[in-house]
């Protein structure tokens, strides 16, 4: 062995390479050993977890009622984790009537206090984990600890706090979010914040209004977007003001929200928003109009069907094709717009909702009554181009035939 060693040393570079080989082989062995050990350890851990879960589930009613004292499971890490997981899973699916019993268990065992302390005093992953678990408890006393974490210098921690507050799902949890956000001190991804606000303000959208009035720019747009999702008829007046906002995103959100307001109030505003300068505002207005019951909406939708933006046209076509009133009359009006894009969009939607045949049949009757007009020629051309393949759409043959003056 000694002679081998001196021989390698004499080789200089070769000795270095030999050592590199040894280190590589050692590295491979260590990685393989780690994989084997980890698999073995996980197998053992899950077996224990399974056994303890069964044991704790057998005593579950007593644990929940406090007959089994918290100290019996709280001080064992595995038992504590199992009980906490079960409690949090139950809280997530429980109604307000079942919640107090689960919260009482969390409080009486001291587990809630432990998580609050962790959320305040630890750092890194344990803090984030504590924040998320605190949110899942839906306990009101969790809100201050979660709110404190919004000021953390770590973005990951702030995100965990926002998600935690979102899971509390109460308007009180929305307040720290809104206060910091409006003062532009909260830097988190917008999607996370919007979802948290959505969860917290569901059922109480009026909480957003004062903050919306204080906010500007992007902040105002985001709050308006959440409001657009949550608004209810009680916010009618506020929404009318927002519909005249200089920010297009706010107008679009107002349009979305106006779908939930009385048609008498919302229709005039939506009619105006349907000719807005921004296409997405027009689109939102058309979507809102589609859910309103109002006799005059056909005219607005026909105008939207000729919009320069294809999304607006498609949505208007979608709504018109699904309206209850006579499709042939609407089709006739669409033809009268002299807009082939509009006609194509409408025919396409009629086909998708299975009404094309009936509409063309009705239109054939109309053509027979008033043959020879330019409009009729126009629709006949489009129908021939797209639908008049033999047997494809029965009404198409009738339209094409009627336009050509054949019986």
């Amino acid at each position, binding site marked *: 062995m000694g002679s081998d060693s001196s021989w390698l040393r004499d*080789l200089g570079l070769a000795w270095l*390479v030999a050592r*590199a*080989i040894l280190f590589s082989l050692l590295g491979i062995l260590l990685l393989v050993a780690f994989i084997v050990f980890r*698999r073995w350890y996980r197998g053992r851990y899950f077996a224990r977890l399974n056994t303890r879960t069964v044991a704790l589930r057998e005593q579950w009613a007593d644990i929940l009622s406090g007959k089994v004292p918290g100290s019996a499971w709280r001080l064992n890490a595995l038992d504590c984790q199992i009980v906490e997981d079960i409690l949090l899973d139950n809280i997530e699916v429980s109604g307000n009537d079942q919640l107090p019993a689960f919260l009482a268990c969390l409080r009486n065992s001291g587990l809630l206090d432990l998580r609050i302390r962790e959320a305040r005093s630890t750092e890194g992953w344990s803090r984030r*984990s504590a924040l998320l678990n605190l949110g899942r408890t839906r306990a009101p006393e969790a809100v201050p600890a979660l709110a404190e974490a919004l000021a953390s210098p770590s973005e990951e921690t702030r995100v965990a706090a926002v998600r935690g507050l979102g899971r509390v799902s109460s308007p009180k949890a929305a307040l720290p979010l809104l206060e910091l956000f409006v003062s532009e001190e909260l830097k988190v*991804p917008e*999607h996370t914040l919007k979802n948290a606000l959505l969860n917290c303000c569901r059922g109480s959208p009026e909480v957003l209004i004062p903050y919306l009035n204080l906010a500007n720019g992007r902040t105002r747009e985001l709050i308006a977007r959440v409001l657009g999702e949550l608004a209810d008829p009680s916010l009618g007046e506020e929404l009318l003001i927002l519909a005249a906002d200089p920010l297009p995103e706010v107008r679009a959100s107002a349009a979305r929200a106006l779908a939930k307001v009385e048609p008498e109030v919302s229709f005039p505003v939506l009619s105006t928003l349907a000719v807005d300068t921004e296409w997405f505002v027009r689109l939102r207005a058309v979507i809102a109009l589609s859910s309103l019951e109002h006799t005059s909406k056909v005219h607005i939708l026909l105008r939207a069907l000729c919009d320069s933006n294809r999304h607006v046209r498609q949505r208007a076509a979608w709504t018109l094709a699904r309206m209850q009133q006579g499709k042939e009359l609407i089709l006739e009006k669409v033809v009268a717009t002299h807009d082939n894009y509009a006609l194509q969009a409408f*025919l396409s939607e009629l086909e998708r909702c299975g009404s094309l045949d009936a509409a063309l049949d009705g239109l054939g009757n109309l053509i027979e009554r008033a043959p020879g007009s330019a409009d009729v020629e126009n629709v006949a051309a489009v129908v021939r181009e797209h639908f008049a393949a033999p047997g494809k759409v029965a009404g198409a043959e009738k339209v094409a035939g009627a336009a050509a003056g054949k019986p």
Partner: protein
Amino acid sequence: MLLFLQISNNSLFVFYLISNLINLALLIVAIYMNTLHRYRLESLRLEGIGSSPFTPPISLLVPARNEELCIVASVRSLLRLDYPQLEVIVVNDASQDGTMRELRENFNLHQSPTLYISEIATAPVIGIYRSIEHPRLLVLDKQSAGCKADAINAGINAASSPYVCVVDADSILEKDSLSRIMAGIISDPERVVAVGGIVRILNGSIVEAAELKEVRLPRTHIEMLQVIEYLRAFLVGREAWAAFNLLPIISGAFGIFRRDLLLKIGGFRADAVGEDFDLIVRLHRYLNDLGVDYHINFIPDPTCWTEAPSDYKSLARQRARWHKGLLDTLWRARDMLFRTRYGRVGWIILPYMWLFECLAPLLELLGYATIILAAVLGALSQHFFIQFMLFGYAFATLISVGSVLLEEMNYRRYGSWREVAWLLVYCLFEHFPYRQMTMIWRLRGVWEYLRGDLTWHQVKRTGASTSPTP
């Protein structure tokens, strides 16, 4: 002569050493990033993405050419994905088999007069079809331009969502893969412009009714070696490069992109040999030219299962084509090299791709030749030669074992002891003789490219995604 051989051997040694050290660094970064991702996932509720009204819609683009064996299964699988606002656009690229017939018969397609605006120029679209049963399905029937890129571009034109996800027709996405990949965008929608997911090998797994029922390892050596190769490439390479915003490629089999950006750069380049690599390099170029802050991300857990070549001939063709694509794209992007405007892309990843990916087979071949020559002429110790080879082999195997470790720690798609043992065993063969085989195939790619042979050779498919394996 001897001096030349000595210099050549020393250069080769330094090349190997640097290559291995870079790979080791990538492995360490990848272990950190994978662990970080796993922790982040714990706080993210995927079902929240599914139920949120703020989740952006996605158009799934499925270019299909002669895919009659798997198209129906793939489309069914895509229509069942868990994502709130999803549109599936299949682009039949002038298939000469029964692809279009299969689609018509199985999805009750009807020609639809949907308006199609060719924002990116493509070969003519001759028919647009909608499914009566599946309103979210749109099928474009187009003439062929002889490339997949053109079909994808037609899909981009027809898409109505702000994000488009490109998926191969012979691939199966896991049910939550779109939610998972979208998590990479919604965490920072201002900066993240594209995200790639992991592609895994479907061969050997049990698939029923277009759903992956049980993940299993493939049966043949060539497929097993590709499993290891994919794990190393995705879990180590892409994860680590993405950490530094240096991701050079998003697989054409599974990636998501901002549609507006694709339109601005003219979509996928129709004359590119490797359109996926070319697109990412052009995105880097465009966004650096604009001077905007952006990120091209990789997320390791949204999984796309795809059929890998199961015979040597098909694999050789595929690898030759990939290498032609690499060479083609790097050559087109040569003006980005070492330019301050392109930052780390021009200074780090493109030089790396030139040296350690594109030229590696040539350098390896040259190295093997000079080492053997030097050994024959007595200018190199035979002991040293063997040691050097062993070092290269052992170090590279270490990286492969590291990728199996990453798989085992974070994703565990291969659950049994037996499967993990097989993965570890095949790590021993990835760098000998598989690496040398791929070297020859890649050299063939270089030769074909230099000859101007840019033909797309169809890879033989067995339809692994449609039926259970025996």
